[in-house]
């Protein structure tokens, strides 16, 4: 794959993200040396100095592998996504935000106005002049622009085609290391790339598959919050009325959270072939509520004060409704 004997090029970018994905990459310890040994890092704002114009100057398709983390929150995010798509052979949506919108996409439940009100006029904000971000500003030095804030957060594949998906908030370091190993093997001609569009660095069952907690038939009579109870350390958390997202969340993390007594929050996103993460989790949880009386069911549901947040915590951007109208995968009837 390399041209003229030079090392293949690697890029990593953060869009609307917290930086955790970058840390996770660094967290692969000495494996990072393999990356350095085998790749030429051409663009990685968190690790090296690089300018957008340098990337623009590169020939299209000249970067072999780009790990793109973060959601698409504003026009800058989208522009760089398009730029990197053009320059990269393999574009990986890296981490929950790029794959499914992540936590930032919970903002889709409200309006931009509400977000700005919270940020610039909230009870903890000291903003006596009532400053609000302006897309343009006439400064003495000339006209200044900032990127346009989008009304809704998008996932990476809602703005550009994506080759592979690597979920997690952040993706677990051993999984990253394994993926890097794989890429190196492919480069060495010892392995083939997974089919395009595949989810890599994760399993294809759900978190319960890796969770060691004992479980029984489920009958939920009330939902409780984890701060209010002392959960049985060996028993399935959902059975104890705790809204663990494990049953609907793709495996691959090693069930770290539930094993440690914390609820799975769904950062690995939907399992293979699932169209809408929240719907799957919701239908499963509702199915095992142990009541046939509507009033009692409503009382039990009162135990979930914020259902949209609870069922879509990391997955709102990739969900059916907050992704807008999308053409569904359709069976190809005619040969092209």
């Amino acid at each position, binding site marked *: 794959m390399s041209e003229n004997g030079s090392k293949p090029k690697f890029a990593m970018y953060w869009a609307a993200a917290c930086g955790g994905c970058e840390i996770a990459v660094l967290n692969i310890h000495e494996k990072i040396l393999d990356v350095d040994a085998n790749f030429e890092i051409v663009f990685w704002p968190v690790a090296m100095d690089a300018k957008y114009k340098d990337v623009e100057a590169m020939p299209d398709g000249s970067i072999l592998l780009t790990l793109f983390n973060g959601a698409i929150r504003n026009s800058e995010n989208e522009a760089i996504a398009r730029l990197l798509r053009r320059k990269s052979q393999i574009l990986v949506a890296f981490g929950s935000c790029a794959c499914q919108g992540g936590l930032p996409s919970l903002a889709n439940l409200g309006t931009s106005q509400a977000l700005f009100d919270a940020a610039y006029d909230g009870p903890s904000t000291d903003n006596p002049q009532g400053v609000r971000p302006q897309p343009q500003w006439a400064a003495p030095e000339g006209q200044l622009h900032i990127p346009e804030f989008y009304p809704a957060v998008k996932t990476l594949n809602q703005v550009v085609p994506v080759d592979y998906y690597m979920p997690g908030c952040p993706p677990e370091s051993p999984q990253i290391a394994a993926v890097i190993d794989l890429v190196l093997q492919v480069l060495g001609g010892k392995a083939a790339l997974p089919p395009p569009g595949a989810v890599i660095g994760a399993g294809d069952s759900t978190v319960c598959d890796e969770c060691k907690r004992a479980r029984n038939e489920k*009958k939920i009579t009330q939902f409780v919050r984890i701060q209010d109870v002392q959960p049985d350390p060996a028993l399935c958390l959902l059975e104890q009325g705790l809204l663990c997202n494990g049953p609907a969340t793709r495996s691959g993390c090693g069930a770290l959270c539930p094993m440690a007594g914390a609820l799975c929050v769904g950062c690995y996103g939907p399992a293979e072939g699932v169209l809408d993460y929240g719907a799957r989790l919701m239908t499963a949880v509702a199915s095992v509520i142990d009541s046939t009386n509507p009033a009692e069911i409503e009382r039990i549901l009162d135990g979930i004060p914020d259902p949209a947040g609870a069922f879509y915590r990391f997955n709102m951007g990739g969900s059916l409704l907050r992704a807008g109208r999308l053409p569904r995968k359709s069976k190809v*009837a005619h040969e092209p």
Partner: protein
Amino acid sequence: MAERIGVYVCHCGSNIAGVVDVVQVAQWAAGRLKHRGVIIARDYKFMCSSLGQELIEQDIKELGLTRVVVAACSPHLHEQTFRNACARAGLNPYLCELVSIREQVSWVHTDKVAATEKAKAVTSGGVERVLWDEPLEPLRVPIHPATLVVGGGIAGIQAALEIADGGHRVYLVEREPSIGGHMAQFDKTFPTLDCAACILTPKMVSVGMHPNITMMTWSEVEKVEGYVGNFTVTVRQKARCVKTDLCTGCGVCEEKCPKKVVDNVFEAGLGYRKAIYTPFAQAVPKYPVIDRENCTYFQKGTCKACEKFCPTGAIDFSQQDELITLQVGNIVLATGFDLFDSRRIPQYGYGRLANVFTSLEFERMCNAAGPTNGNVVLRDGLTAPKTVGIIHCVGSRDKNFNNYCSAICCMQSLKFAHIVKERTGAEVYNFYIDMRTAAKAYDEFDQRVRDEGTHVIRGRAAEVTDAARMPGEEGKLIIQAEDTLIGRQRRIPVDMVLLAAGLEPRRDAKQTAQLFGLSCSADGWFIEKHPKLDPVATMTEGIFIAGCVQGPKDIPNSVVQGAAAAARVQGRIQQKEISLEPVRASINEHRCSGCRICNNLCPFNAILFHDDRMVSEINPALCQGCGTCVAACPAGAISGTVFSNEQILAQIQGLLMLNLNGGRVEELVAA
């Protein structure tokens, strides 16, 4: 391979074509759905006719169709027809979709343009769905030739005899000591007034003697496992404390037993029996049982009078309940009804006023073998009534209790009127809401009873009281009712009141339903597969219902259902195996995380959890195909045939016509 879809739009004479422009629908499908694989779209006068079917068969063969969509009537009518047509032409029948543009379009809409647009959308939904249809084979299940009949009343007896006469083994389970059911309690049967015992006893004897019938009385079904063709049933044979191989049925034990008990079952509380008893003289089998709750020996530890006097040493106090396991292929449930408890209507005074009787009490009273030897008398056991009031619809057609009509009470009440007149010459007043005598020779019987001088008052009785208000009422029961034909309140003083109590589902019907995996209506009657076209089958394959378990009915109808259930069972046995619709769920074991969400969602217990592998599995023979687990699986590891996620999601897209250029292009024309 590229799919080649044929679309067939039916005119159904003018039924569809009168409202929907079928030609336009077909042309539209051929043009606008071409890129979805539609290579031919035709309209035809009657798609279900043999010529219509041949059209499809011919296209499959000549044009190499790989999928077929028929836009015509409801799939409940002709789905099978078109599937068969496809099969004849060598196409897997499950690659054919029938979408309804008659029941759901042309018959319910008037705006022709809007109806045509909707027909296009419905067809488009069918095309998208058919693309995801999978070739399937019907499930074939072998049928065990033995049958379980539960309930030894007239419906169960009829079913058992018919199946046994057909040469197949029948296990007849009855919880009372004898078969016979409610019919054995009656004296006369309407409208012919033949004696119930005279017509029932020979049938009971046939059951007892039949080489193919294993009769299990004093027994109850405890567990039902398995599925159609292959049920494993556990029956609890309660301890009789009588060795049936030694007992001759001489009745000495019963005579010598010192303990007398009110018989609330067979004698409806009007008479007594002993602690060791056969419920009635013609009981089948003739062996008595010991009622342990009332037996002095079992309660106090001494007595054993029956053992002392038994000439053959047949009494065995040490007998224990036995659990017997049966293998059967089909089950007929004929568990009957309970009588409405008239105490729930306190204003009729039953249980408070001595001379108010229920219909079942009165049946026993006028039965020559009953507690009064057939004499119609007041509660004192001596005095014949001079006036008798009969109240219809007690607990029936009453929104406070049961909305439904109990079907038999009008005729039963008329029968009572006749018997009272015949035996006592008393004046009889029948209080009815509507006289329902709709069956062969029933209305003639009504006429006969009226001609005999029975007074019929159209009005629901408001109350029965012993509070005298006017002279002539002292010492009487007064029935107050509005006579709606003359528009007056009336107070009729009588000596005796008969309450034609309605029929209700057995008190334990819900448990029985659960045991057999059946469903009950809100009233508690078991639900048949189709109220008109499949009245004795149930939603659970291999389980049939007959008689009052399905709803109130008289003896002729119970017999008809018993026979019908038997015919269905015999047909099954004859086929040796049965084909089931392959609508089934299955779990992708690799994807299953063993979260156990689905485990208690299946009322048919088809979902099994493997502790060792930590995965769930669906038994396809038990699965009824409802799809609840498919919709519940959080991992998306469960899929369902015929109604898969892909099929339904595609159909949604098709109905919204998103198969065209990615947007809803064909908006409905404003209606």
